[in-house]
Structures are given as structure tokens and as C-alpha cells.
């Protein structure tokens, strides 16, 4: 790749000085080594140090740099900048309060994650060695434990937009099923009780935006379906 100039349209808002948010048109010349959207944003920051966004690992495992990219949620570090239609329109993740520019307040998102008791519960005395699990049992956790809590899914979900305080959302429900599916966990009934509610689980209308946007290729809708199956199996 050579040097090239890229056009952006970026949501800007600094509550310290702006009365209201606005969209800023800005362009930046990229170096040949700049491949990802995050590289371009770092280049932009060298030009305008007030451009604010979160970032850390730059390889898609920490979940910091989720944003709305040309209308679709994704991670800046895993998005090829040259494949994006210009001007590249960047907005903060939808549905969460904006703190500044592309930085959103994720309190509600984490509150829902915490609400499903995201930790293993096993009340037996701890054995001296590892608790055994067959490779097949362990495989049940694949596609669940890899979640990076970036919030791309929950903030792409209309049910979460409407009821962020009541609907757990795809990320939280994926985590809930991660523990339900773990043969070492003993809290199945309490976990299902915790979700047996018109909103917490059942607001999922299988729109599947979550599956569409997950940068790790995970499938929260399938996990939600499996929780519903467990609810049914328990009732009969």
C-alpha cells in the first residue's frame, strides 16, 4: 500500500466546551504501513490531539475500540481502512450515553454483565487437583468464553436500546450460557431463575444483529436459544 488520503466524518462532542454534538469532516494522509482503521485514527490524533477514543491491544482481544463504523458496529483495530467507503463515518456505539467523542459510558452494559453472576459456582470442597472435564464437555464452552466484552452486540440490539435496564442483552446472555454450559458449575437452577422474567431473557426477538456484528464471530442468538431450551426442559 502507498501513501493515500482518507476522508472521515466523525462524531465530536466535548461536554467541557461543546453545547451539542456535531459531525466533523476531516481527512488524513496515511503512511504505507497504516492498514487498519485504528492506524488511521492514531494518525488522526497526531494531527488533532483532541480526537478521543479508547484503544489498547490493537489486535482484537481487549475490546476497547468498538465503535460504529459506516453504520455498523465493529472494532477499529480489526477493520481494514482501505475497504471502507469514504467518507468513513464514525459514531460512538449506539444506545449508550456519550462521555466524549467516540467514548461511551458502558456502566449499563457492565451492570447487565454483572447481573448474570459471571463466575463459576461450585460449592463442593475444592479437590486437590483440577476438576475433570472431558474434551467434549470443554468443547461446549467454545464460542462462549472468547467474548471480549466490547459491547458491539448489545449496542446493535434494538431490544437492548429499548430496555437497557431490563433486558440483559446478547453479551450478558452469552456469558450466562457460558456458565450454564460448564459441567463444573452447580448453579443451573438459580441461573435460570435469574433469567425467568418477561424482559431479562425473553426480550430477545432473534433479530440477530448481535451475530452479524460480533468481531470474534460468536453467536449470542444461539446461546440465547439454548437458554430458552433449558427453561423449557426444566418446566416439563
Amino acid at each position, binding site marked *: 500500500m502507498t501513501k493515500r488520503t482518507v476522508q472521515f466524518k466523525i462524531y465530536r462532542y466535548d461536554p467541557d466546551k461543546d453545547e451539542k454534538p456535531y459531525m466533523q469532516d476531516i481527512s488524513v494522509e496515511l503512511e504505507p504501513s497504516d492498514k487498519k482503521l485504528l492506524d488511521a485514527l492514531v494518525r488522526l490524533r497526531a494531527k488533532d490531539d483532541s480526537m478521543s477514543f479508547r484503544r489498547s491491544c490493537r*489486535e482484537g482481544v481487549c475490546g476497547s475500540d468498538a465503535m460504529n463504523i459506516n453504520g455498523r458496529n465493529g472494532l477499529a483495530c480489526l477493520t481494514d481502512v482501505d475497504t471502507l467507503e469514504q467518507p468513513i463515518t464514525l459514531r460512538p456505539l449506539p444506545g449508550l450515553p456519550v462521555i466524549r467523542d467516540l467514548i461511551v459510558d458502558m456502566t449499563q452494559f457492565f451492570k447487565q454483565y454483572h447481573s448474570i*453472576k459471571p463466575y463459576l459456582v461450585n460449592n463442593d470442597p475444592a479437590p486437590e487437583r483440577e476438576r475433570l472435564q472431558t474434551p467434549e464437555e470443554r468443547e461446549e464452552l467454545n464460542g462462549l468464553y472468547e467474548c471480549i466484552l466490547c459491547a458491539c452486540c448489545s449496542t446493535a440490539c434494538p431490544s437492548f436500546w429499548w430496555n437497557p435496564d431490563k433486558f440483559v442483552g446478547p453479551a450478558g446472555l452469552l456469558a450466562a450460557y457460558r456458565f450454564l454450559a460448564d459441567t463444573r458449575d452447580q448453579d443451573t437452577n438459580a441461573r435460570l431463575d435469574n433469567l425467568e422474567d418477561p424482559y431479562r431473557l425473553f426480550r430477545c426477538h432473534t433479530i440477530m444483529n448481535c451475530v452479524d456484528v460480533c468481531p470474534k464471530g460468536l453467536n449470542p442468538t444461539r446461546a440465547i436459544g439454548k437458554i430458552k431450551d433449558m427453561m423449557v426442559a426444566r418446566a416439563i
Partner: protein
Amino acid sequence: MNVAKRTFDAVIVGAGGAGLRAALQLSEAGLKTAVLTKVFPTRSHTVAAQGGVAASLGNSTEDNWHWHMYDTVKGSDWLGDQDAIEFMCKKANEVVIELEHYGMPFDRTDNGKIYQRPFGGHSMNYGQAPVMRSCAAADRTGHAMLHALYQRNVRANTQFFVEWMALDLIRDADGDVLGVTAMELETGEVSIFHAKATIFATGGAGRIYHSSTNAFINTGDGVGMAARAGIPLEDMEFWQFHPTGVAGAGVLITEGVRGEGGILRNAGGERFMERYAPNLKDLASRDVVSRAMTTEINEGRGCGPDKDHVLLDITHLAPDTIMKRLPGIREIAIQFAGVDPIKAPIPVVPTCHYQMGGIPTNYKGQVVVPKDDNSNSPVAGFYAAGECACASVHGANRLGTNSLLDLLVFGKSAGETVVEDFQSGQLKLKPLPADAADVSLARLARLDGQTSGESVFDVGLEMRRTMQKHAGVFRFDALLKEGVQKIGEVAERAKRTEIKDKSKVWNVARMEALELDNLIEVARATMVSAEARKESRGAHVRDDAPDTPENPNGRDDANWLKHTLWYSEGDRLDYKAVNLKPLSDDVEPIALATRTY
């Protein structure tokens, strides 16, 4: 500026593996604890670790902690302290089993135990053959570990201060540590966290180099804070260059790839590690492999149009194995190298990865400094663990999978020490000095008031380029001497940077300027310590300290078997003895020997 004061039994800075493990110890013992973290805990850099955590569980091949200890001492090129190494290797099984009990989704063997794979420098029977010691969750071990530790802390009701950046260490006239100042990123407000105990678990500073596997946040905040407060930094000349960073991008490709059978090849397709390490070959220690790769490239046998990298080949592995054991690596190769490793080899180069040195500690996690006749005198109220600390278990070169183990063992150990000191009544809440926040407020006022000057981006770039050129895989006397001068100049420039953004709200520019202050301390420590050490040992290899019969591999035990201590004030150097004596009578000291793989 109004500075709020908050009082705790203990404050932990950093919520990666070491901070979270320490926090568990404190929360479960009922101490009122604050965990300050610049990023949400699961975004800490532990998340990026891939290949595994070492423990001699012996699930697939025979193993014991004696062999692990021998490998670690040898890997450290005898610069590691043998008491701390014995402690770590002995505790490994316990902390890994605990993690499994916390819910860590380890891969499994057919009989249901934790899956283990071979890793560089780890051997059975004192160097004879590779051993399966690395406990793994696919190639996402750090991610699985960090989330499991965070989840356990949710259960323990640990109190986190998320997106709070610690600014400076608070010490009183006796030199005792009383806590830290910290800034809430969302509001820009500064608070004093006043505590009986302060634990630093702030990670490394790999961002001093231009080409680094490290995250943006790895800016050595704790190390910089300690150095500014007069604490010496130990063995900072020793930086690990990981053999396999994706060429150009720097993103890490785990050594587990070679553990699963991957092979490094030069432009001729030759498996060149056979020439450098006939026994362990591609699974030799990281410093050895990185130097071999650099030699191949320097001698014209590199790959690609610019002959500037070598190839990591796994095309001979079954696609099933790659999909099951290395799925994350396949994603990374496709994303950042543009190749599917099932079909084509991955272009790789040695890339800055890990800081072996750091804040000097003992195996209990206490920070120790020279005082009177004792070169390891504990600083009251101050503890450190993980990459920011130097226990020293890694010495001159760390073995892969020993970093995640370090986090668990010394995070827990620091936590246990604090709990013991707290319960015995030894820890006191000493009165805060009147000027406790003055240094931090002055730094912030300087940034607010500065209306002209260079950008943080430009000065940071100059620092990274200087480090890359002057203190790389191979080191040269003239380049190091020039490097000391240049990094001193960059340090002066860093004092006059200007940020245009003056907002109080989530000001990334301010955060990066404050981070640069920390990076600069680390960069100076590295360059000055490296220039002074006139031998080759582990990751520090000098052109003018070659392999001779008197000094095999250029290692000069008669003069340089000692730890460096660098003081920020005046770039002063001091040295202290390496502890060659194990902690207990369970094991004989590992005698000095020439290192070959």
C-alpha cells in the same frame, strides 16, 4: 485544584493478572481495598497472552518442579535469584489448580486433565528433551485467565476504580509509601488514595520500542512512578525480543505455534535453528531464537523482497490441529499478515515483548532497596508484582509461560504478605505529608499552561526510534554511548511537550503526556544500564563481548554476575549480588554453567 482524599487499607494499582490475583487475596481477607485501573480490568494486557502458563503438573509427560527450576535458572542465564525461582516453580501447581477451580476454561487431555503443550526452554531431566509444561486454553490463555480472575473478583466484591490513572507515588520523610495520587479520566479530577499498603501491578513498558507486541497502555506507569519517587530500577537492560511478531504489524504469534510443531525457515527454506540449537531447535530459549533469526536476516538469508523477515511454517500440521489449538493465531495471521497459515507460512521478526527488569522485590512481593548495609531492605508499605516487578525470576531472559505464572504466584504472594502485615498490626496509616499531591498537580498544571512546544506524538516517536536503533537485539558500544546521550535529550524534550487539548473530560492527550513521563524513565534506565554492562548475558548481547573460552557466550561471571540498580536522579548506577542460594534445603543451588540448547 481541590484534591479529594480517600482512605483504604490497601490500594492496588493495575488490574491485569497480578493486580487481580492480589486483589482476591485482599478482598477475601476483608481488607478495604481499592483497585485502580487505567482500563476496564479485562482490557489489561494479560488478555493478549496466548500460549500458556507453566506448571509441572505432569499431565502428559513426566515433570517436577526441580526440572522447571533448573530450566528457569538456565533461561535467566543465572541472573535470576534462586530463592524466588524455587518459590515460583514450587507454587506453580497450586496457583494453576486454583485458577481451574475459579472456572478457567483450560483445554483438556483425553482423561479430563488440564492440557499441556511444549514451550521454548522448558525441558525434562535438566535439558534433555522438550517437556509438556505449558497449561493452555487454546491460544487464548491470557484472555481466559484474565476473565476468570476478573470474574472471581466480581464474586469477591472487589472495589474497582475503572479508568483511573495513577499519577505519582506518595512517600513521607522516612521514605515509607503512603499511597498514590490518581486522576479520574472521565472528569480529570485528582484524588489522593491514602493507604496502609500500596501494591503496584502496573505491567511493563514495551512501548518504549518502535516495534513492540505490547498494547498502547503498556507505558510502565508503576515503574516510572517508582523511579521518580527515588526507588531504583533493577536489571532494566534486559528486554525480551519475542522471536515471532508479525513482520510489519508487531502483533504477537505465540511460541505455542512452535510448541505444536511449527518451524522457522530462512529464504532457502532451511530449518536454521538446527544449526544454532541442535537439541531443542525451534524450542530453544527466546533470546537464542531471536538472535539466530536476526543473524539469518543480517547475513542475507531473510525472506521477502527486502529480505527482512523469516517464515514461521505450520503448513505441515493438520488443519484440525490448527483450528483446535491455534484458532486465534490463524485469525491474527489472516488479519495482520494476510496469510492463512494452513496454506502459507507467516512472515515474522523478533519484536520487543517483555521487560525482565523492574521495581526490585523479594519473593514475598515486598519492594526492596539498598539501605545501610542491607541491599534488600523492604520499603514500608510498598509491594509490587508481575511485569512491573523484578523478583528476580526471569533474570536476563524469561522463558515463555513463566510470565503468566509470575503474575499468579507473586500477585498472590504480595497479597498474602499485605494481609499478614495488616493482621499482625504492622501496617499503619501514617499521616500524609502536606505536599502529598504537589508533584502531580505541578505536572498537570504544566500541561494545562504550556501553550507552545513539541507534540507528545513526535517526542514519543523519537524515543521509540532511539530505543529501537540503539538498544536492540544486538548491542554495540558506540551505539549505546550515543543512545545514552540521545535518550537524555529526548527526556529533556519530554518536559516541554505541549498538548492542544485542555479539556477536563476524558482527555487522551493528557493521559498520553503523563504516560510519556513514565516511558522516559524506563527508556533512560534501559539505555544507561545497557551501556554500563560490559558483557553478554541472556537478552543483553554486546558485539564487544563475544564468545571466548574464558567467557563462553560473552558472559563474564567474574565481573558481571550482579543485578543492576538504576536511580533516576543523575542516572546513578549501583549493583547488588545475585542470590544463588535457593530458599530451602529441598534443592541444591543450580551451579553456573555455559548455556547451550
